[in-house]
Each structure stands twice: as C-alpha cells, then as structure tokens.
C-alpha cells in the first residue's frame, strides 16, 4: 500500500470524537482503520470471526479513550495499533498487560501544533522507510509484529533500521521533563 493517508486528517476526526461525540467523524475513522486492523490481525493468524470481533472492540475502545489520544506522542495508526495489540493479548492470551506509569504531567490540553506536525511527518517517513526496506528485512519486522517471532528470535536480529522518529520524541520528553523541574 503506497497511498499512505495524510495522518493530519485524523487529528480533526479524533478531536471531533473527543469533544462532540461526532459519529460521522467516527464513521470515517472506522471506514479507514477497521479493515486495516482486521487485515493485520488475520496476517497474524487470527480467524476472520475473531478478527471481526476484536476490531469492533478496538474501535469501541478508541471512542471511549479518545480523550487520551496525544498526537504529539503517537499518530492515529500507532495509537490504534497499541489498542489492537492490547485487545488481542487480552482476548487470546488471557493475560494482563502491564503498562508504564503515566508521566506526571499527563496529556496536554492543547498539544503543540509544531510537535504534532513533526510527529506526523516523522511517522510518514518511518512508514515509507519500512515499505522501502529490502524484502527480507521488512518481512522480519512484519513477522515480529504479527507475533511469529519469539523474543530470542528477535534478539538474534540486530541492526533494525529505525531512528527516524527518535529525535523528535526524545526532544519533546526532554523538554517536558525540564519544565517539570
């Protein structure tokens, strides 16, 4: 898939869901992401029935947690991925998912437009970089996220080509940490 959507669009939809429980905005997000999450789950070996049920729960969670979405930390696709991952762990493995302690300052009321733009841009660069990887490397990363590789199998593969969105997230964290002092 090369027609990577402009993620900036989803920010307006996410805000509309959060502030006015806008079902039209939710329908647009659903139309784009639900079939993608379903495809992702099925690539990971889940049955169509299970995937369908899981996606519905993921989308319902997105609605309920819309106020926790922080566009300076994650794009919509990243955030939806984490919801789908947690839902899958809960449904298949029946185990708890320990999450890191929230940062003391929590999500900003009105996230900085510059930080949001930068993250959007860097996420798109990352997506293009992954799509452009040699088949073997890309397949490896995909298999890790489909759940086909154990931790020790992943550990054997070094030199994962990341690093494009590093800087921005780190800078943002550094600054926030500094402001807290």
């Amino acid at each position, binding site marked *: *898939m090369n027609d990577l959507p402009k993620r900036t669009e989803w920010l307006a939809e996410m805000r509309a869901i959060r502030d006015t429980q806008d*079902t039209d905005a939710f329908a647009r997000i*659903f139309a784009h992401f*639900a*079939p993608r*999450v*379903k*495809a*992702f789950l*099925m*690539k990971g070996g889940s049955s169509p029935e299970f*995937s*369908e049920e899981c*996606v*519905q*729960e993921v989308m*319902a969670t997105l609605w*309920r947690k819309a*106020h*926790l979405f922080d566009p300076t930390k*994650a*794009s919509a*696709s*990243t955030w939806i*991925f*984490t919801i789908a*991952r947690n839902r899958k*762990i809960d449904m298949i*493995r*029946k*185990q708890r*998912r*320990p*999450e*890191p*302690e*929230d940062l003391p300052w*929590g999500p900003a009321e009105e996230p900085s437009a510059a930080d949001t733009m930068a993250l959007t841009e860097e*996420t798109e660069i*990352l997506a293009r970089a992954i799509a452009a990887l040699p088949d073997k490397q890309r397949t490896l*990363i*995909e298999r*890790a*996220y489909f*759940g086909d590789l*154990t*931790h020790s199998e*992943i*550990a*054997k*593969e*070094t030199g*994962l080509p*990341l690093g494009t*969105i*590093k800087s921005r*997230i*780190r800078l943002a964290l*550094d600054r926030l*940490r500094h402001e807290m002092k």
Partner: protein
Amino acid sequence: MKIDMTQINHHLTDGLLMGYSAGTLPEAFNLVVASHISLCDECRARMHEFDAVGGAVMEQQGDVPMGEGAFAATMAMINSGPEMDMPAPPRNAPSVLPQPVRDYVGGDLDSVTWRKIGGGVSQAVLPTTRDASVRLLKIPAGVAVPDHGHRGTELTLVLQGAFEDESDRFAAGDIEVANEEMVHQPVAKQGEDCICLAATDAPLRFMGLIPRIAQRVLRI
C-alpha cells in the same frame, strides 16, 4: 519515583522493546519492561518508536472488508457501555515500586509479603502466566546472591540500592539483561538493602550443590 533518570546506565535491548511493542513477551517480562520504562525516559521514547513501527506495519497490510453491520454493531457496543474512560487520578505519594509493580503487589513496598529464601535474601513471587516468572528480591546490603548461570533470559531491574557483579554496577533504574552465556555473582552494595524486580523464562541454575537443592525446594 525518586530515581534520577539521568543516572540510568543500563537500558532495555531493542529485542525486548520490540517484543513488548509487538505484544509477544511473557507477562512476567512485560512487567519488568513496563517498570523500567516507568523510570526511564530514554526507553519510553524508544517504546514509542517501536509502537510507531507497529502502526506502520499495520497500515501496510492492505484491508479486509468488515462484515455487514459491523459499524452498527460497534455503535451498539459503544452505546451500551460506559461513556468515556476517565483517566486515573494523579498520584502524589512518593513510592519505591513503580506503578506497574504496585498493581501486582496491591500497594507499595510495605504491602509486599516477603519469604526468606536463605542467605538473608527474601523474595516475593508475583502472579503472572506461567511462561515466565517474576519476583521481587530483597538482598541485604553487602550480601552475595549465589553464583548462578541461566538457561533462558533473565531480566533484573534495580528498584532500590545497587548491586555489582564481575563486569558492572547496577543502581536504581538500571536493568540487567542476562542470557545463557552469562554466569555471575551479583553482590548487593553496602549501605542499603537492594530491592530488585527479576524475571526469568527458565529456572535459574545454581553452580553449587546446596543452592541447587535449595532451588528445587524454594522455586527460585
């Protein structure tokens, strides 16, 4: 947490972070990873990076149409559920245990039920799925943990005090990732009891006979 983040020298490996992000680690490992990230901004940022990779991979798998009525079913689910999940109230009291560990213990350090396992060392096994195990360890200042090797992967996160082994020093916030090749004898630093969160996906293998028997009896 009172840990100075700039003092953390030992971090999570890419492999562990990717496994955490992909959701394929045992629950016991997830707990140690989430606890380290709670203390370490650098690894928190790296976690966001790996989550972004997951999001990008998800976006690139094409699409499979949802069933008819899926949207209506989702709206029905939303309308029959709670309105919006409210964020947890902020917490003010300083604590030794990071939030993910407190969730398993049911409180901070004073809520832990310690069991002595010999040599002055105490442990508290935390309940997780059985593909790996995780425990809190309390090692009195200056005491050595029996020399041991590893069959699988062992993660040790220091929460209070510090320990040293042959090659390095690990203080609060640091995580040691040990594998099969490593045989070591950690010693808790003088001055303060060392409290660690340790997870393993295989039973530890002690080098001496007595500790090996103790291992069988004590399940460490």
